[in-house]
């Protein structure tokens, strides 16, 4: 399926989601309350079948915390991007997609560790790299580490 066909397909099946054509992927932006449902449909819909979550990144852009999901279909060979931004910075919460794509298990633990986004219904949400008693979330733009100062 080419870029335009996928764009049309996503537009027709995800009318409530903002669908834009990016430089590389079709980019969908979804509100936190619709995230899990849209992700589930992306994975299970017979024309999408995005069964492979190949990258999940936490971002802190324009003062908002969010998660970017890169998903691909191993059968239909197309890919798209799903973006979701949390409503607030302190106590940012999103739904976990672990039950849809188990690969999210590790990605979400990493995002929780470094950006402090909590994932609802994640089976084992702990810090993955930093110590359990570490304070703060280093990849946030407002993070200041007084011990190891890195700034530009």
């Amino acid at each position, binding site marked *: 399926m080419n870029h335009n066909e996928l764009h049309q397909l996503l537009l027709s099946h995800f009318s409530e989601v903002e669908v834009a054509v990016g430089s590389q992927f079709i980019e969908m932006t979804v509100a936190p309350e619709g995230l899990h449902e849209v992700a589930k449909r992306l994975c299970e819909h017979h024309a999408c079948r995005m*069964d*492979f979550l190949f990258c999940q990144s936490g971002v802190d*852009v324009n003062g908002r915390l969010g998660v970017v999901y*890169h998903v691909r279909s191993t059968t239909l060979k197309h890919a798209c991007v799903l973006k979701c931004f949390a409503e607030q910075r302190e106590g940012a919460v999103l739904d976990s997609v672990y039950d849809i794509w188990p690969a999210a298990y590790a990605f979400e633990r990493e995002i929780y560790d470094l950006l402090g986004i909590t994932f609802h219904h994640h089976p084992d949400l702990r810090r993955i790299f*930093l110590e359990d008693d570490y304070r703060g979330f280093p990849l946030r733009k407002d993070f200041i580490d007084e011990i190891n100062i890195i700034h*530009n």
Partner: protein
Amino acid sequence: MAQTSDSHQVIIGEHEQYTINMGPQHPSTHGVLRFELSLEGETVVGVRSHCGYIHRGIEKMCEVSTYQQIIHLTDRMDYLSAHINNEAVSLCVEKALGIEVPERVKVIRTILSELTRVGSHLLWWSAFGMDMGALTTFFYGMRDREKILDIFEESCGGRLLQSFICPGGLMHDVHPNFVARIRELIPYLRKKLPEYDRLLTGNIILQERTRNIGVLSRQQAIAWGVTGPSGRGSAFSCDVRVHEPYSAYDRVKVNEVLYHQGDTFARYRVRLDEIHESLSILEQLIDQIPEGNDYAVKMKPIIKLPAGDYYQRVETARGELGVYMVSDGEKYPVRVKFRSPNFSNLFVIEQLAVGHKIADLVAISGSLDLVIPDIDR
């Protein structure tokens, strides 16, 4: 409960569970990784992996580094695929800027990537033999990998961390001996590889210890994002070189090695077959290096990517490496995320090892070919 008998020996009942740490300093985890094992006797009933012992915050450092500086950090992730990591970042920057590198650069990059893959698989084979108790393999593998490192040293200056591929092309031109050395290497390795099979592959102890051990189904591989040779051992067709060719992979014939068994032996076979496959790619490319000496396009001293986000994926020796960059148009990226193959491959071990013995866990983790700095970044 453990009981103390008269002779002060601790007797553990048949169905009693206990917990033991394997690592962070353990030879068969190949780095600082800790497995928290729940055991019943010698049988593994649960594995929890703990990482972060070598977390250096590379993604954080990238946010205060220029795009040229990021190259040097990527070497230190999967240090056995240094060239390929460099290439991933370079391709991402070039894609963002819309730069087309010269043909010669593309071919040389591909050759370097394939040499890296061969070297990495040779080291894996050496270490895997050691994990299985066959010490000789280490000498065989290291002897042959040395030839590849010599080629790198001559052309790039570094043996392990080369930082040779950079945005715009290569740091400098390759050594005049580059082509001749590779022409010598290919028949040499082709002659040596059957020795590997005679020494280890056909060995009945290795086969008994790897067949039907740690079976990963195709569905599991896709769901957990297991890529690279580990995924291809489960018939998950995930070779980026085939599905989304980059550099010069579009002009060579790449046969994707797939096995269907999904067990430790299948992963073993995939890697050995991939060495042959890489040699055939090298054979196809070595005569195709265009004449001349252009090794890079002129880049601005300070690279600024147009605002937006960019994603580039490449096939390292361990699987799919993705680079996700967010730029706001300044000289430093806003966010760089590395989707490292080992990070995704690791957590599947928590399912594969259950029901097997501790020694089998060593075989399984060996067959996943984990490089710990790539997990922790």
